[in-house]
């Protein structure tokens, strides 16, 4: 079985979010970069867990980005995975990224393609669904559990207000979220091994973006919290009713 894990580079969750160049570019100054948590904790670790049970599984990692994504993909290789592919395209248009991944996926004939449920920077949650259309392959979003039995996949996904279990046959694309696997930390052996694992760089083939970012804004600061005395909950109810008008 061959698994393709999609990896994206995102700012650390505690990063200060600011913009430069007239609010048209994300300010990368002082930003700590990480593997998008959904890609790492749930997709990648799930692939590793499957490989631990069946060592014949091959795990390929793919990222679409510039050379500055390489530390992230090395870290992903340190967690696990056999080799990595970086498509040298710095576009932030999901459609471009998905088409680049689809081109690699078509060549690799993967049984399982895993993405995180969304990235924590652009929150687009689009790649899995786009791959579904580009590769004409079954897509199950918001997966929280997966078992593979031969060519059958048993998947549990989140639905609004509950869970749905289903059976389908490989190949499939899953977007993964909490529940799929548990967060891991790379060990020294993994870090050493990652140095020599293949990281192939492929030139971009897709250049036509469908969208363009015009500007960023940060939300207006809250006007400040209005404190209510602990002994005066009648006042809190009045504020929620008459001022906020939410109850």
């Amino acid at each position, binding site marked *: 079985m061959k698994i393709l894990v999609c990896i994206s580079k995102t*700012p650390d*969750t505690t990063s200060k*979010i600011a*913009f430069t160049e007239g609010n048209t570019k994300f300010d990368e100054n002082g930003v700590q970069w990480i593997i998008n*948590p959904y890609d790492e904790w749930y997709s990648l670790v799930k692939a590793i867990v499957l490989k631990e049970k069946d060592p014949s599984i091959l795990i390929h990692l793919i990222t679409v980005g510039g050379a500055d994504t390489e530390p992230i993909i090395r870290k992903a290789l340190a967690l696990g995975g056999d080799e990595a592919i970086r498509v040298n395209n710095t576009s932030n248009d999901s459609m471009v990224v*998905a088409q680049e991944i689809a081109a690699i996926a078509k060549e690799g004939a993967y049984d399982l393609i895993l993405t995180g449920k969304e990235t*924590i920077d*652009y*929150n*687009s*949650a*689009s790649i899995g*669904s*786009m791959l*579904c*259309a580009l590769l*004409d*392959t*079954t*897509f*199950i*979003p*918001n997966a929280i559990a997966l078992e593979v039995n031969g060519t059958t996949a048993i998947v549990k996904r*989140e*639905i*609004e*207000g*509950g*869970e*749905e*279990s*289903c*059976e*389908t046959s490989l190949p499939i694309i899953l977007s993964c979220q*909490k529940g799929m696997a548990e967060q891991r930390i790379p060990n020294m052996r993994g870090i050493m091994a990652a140095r020599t694992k293949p990281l192939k760089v492929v030139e971009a083939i897709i250049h036509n973006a*469908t*969208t*363009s*970012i*015009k*500007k960023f*804004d*940060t*939300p207006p600061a*809250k006007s400040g*919290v*209005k*404190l*209510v*005395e*602990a*002994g005066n*909950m009648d006042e*809190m*109810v009045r504020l*929620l*009713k008459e001022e*906020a008008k*939410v*109850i």
Partner: protein
Amino acid sequence: MVLIYIDQDDQEIKKASFEAISYGAALAKQLGLSAEAILLGTVKNNVSELGKYGANKVHQVNNTALNNFDASVHSTVVAAAAKTLGATVLVFAHNINGRAIAPAVAVKLSAGIVTGACALPNTEAGFVVTKTVFSGKAFASIQIDTSIKVISINQNSFGVIAGDGTAAVQNIDTAVPTSKIKITATDKIKGEVPLTEANLVVSGGRGLKGPEHWGILLDLAKSLGASTACSRPVSDADWRPHHEHVGQTGIQIAPNLYIAIGISGAIQHLAGVNRSKTIVVINKDPEAPFFKAADYGVVGDAFEVVPALTAAILKSKAGA
């Protein structure tokens, strides 16, 4: 024509779809186009009533196989119908099913897409859609450069606008591919409003000290008719079920009112709730970072404040 996707679950139209229609109808008006909806499968609702949210017409693919959701099948059917009908803008709710198919539909129509929109597009020069990015910590204005446009709208960001009106319902005959997915079980939490659809949410954190103390929170939720949620440490410790976890890695919500009890307000938690309209924080630590993101706050012991708030709400309701 603006085509709005109607999401259903268990043959009930989802609340998020009413908001998507309201948004799509406002957008159609802005563009001078008609607002039409597409419904896959059969539902128990009276479909013509979708007119009251602004749909002029509803196109229904009357095939019960579509009552089970399959992203591949549903996106294929919606894209084919959009082509037949000549839709130029497609609107989806940015809920679980909406975001699973909107990007696939965009691929099939060679359309640009913005997911998680939070306002109507600016169409004065071009077509620029504002969406939330960085988990609610910023907004991006994104121009769609293709002739067909796809938008998914964040839940609770536009609101449901109901008026009068009846939609004409007509069947649309579209080939339905066979699903490769066999649904084996559905496990739903009975009698509760899904958190993503709740208008009022009461949420607890480690400050409540243990699952045995949740009674005061449940009483408050009951007095308001609110859904309950919790922070990550609480769900990790199994004090509360995982489906209640809101935050960066849990569920992201945008209710009208979010009451946080004994939650310090770590940045990862805020990322899941910062789109709430009104935030109330109850915490005994006046330095808790959550107060900076709150509209109203109470510095005090939750075990005294929460029952007092419940009593005040019940008193107010009895008087009203």
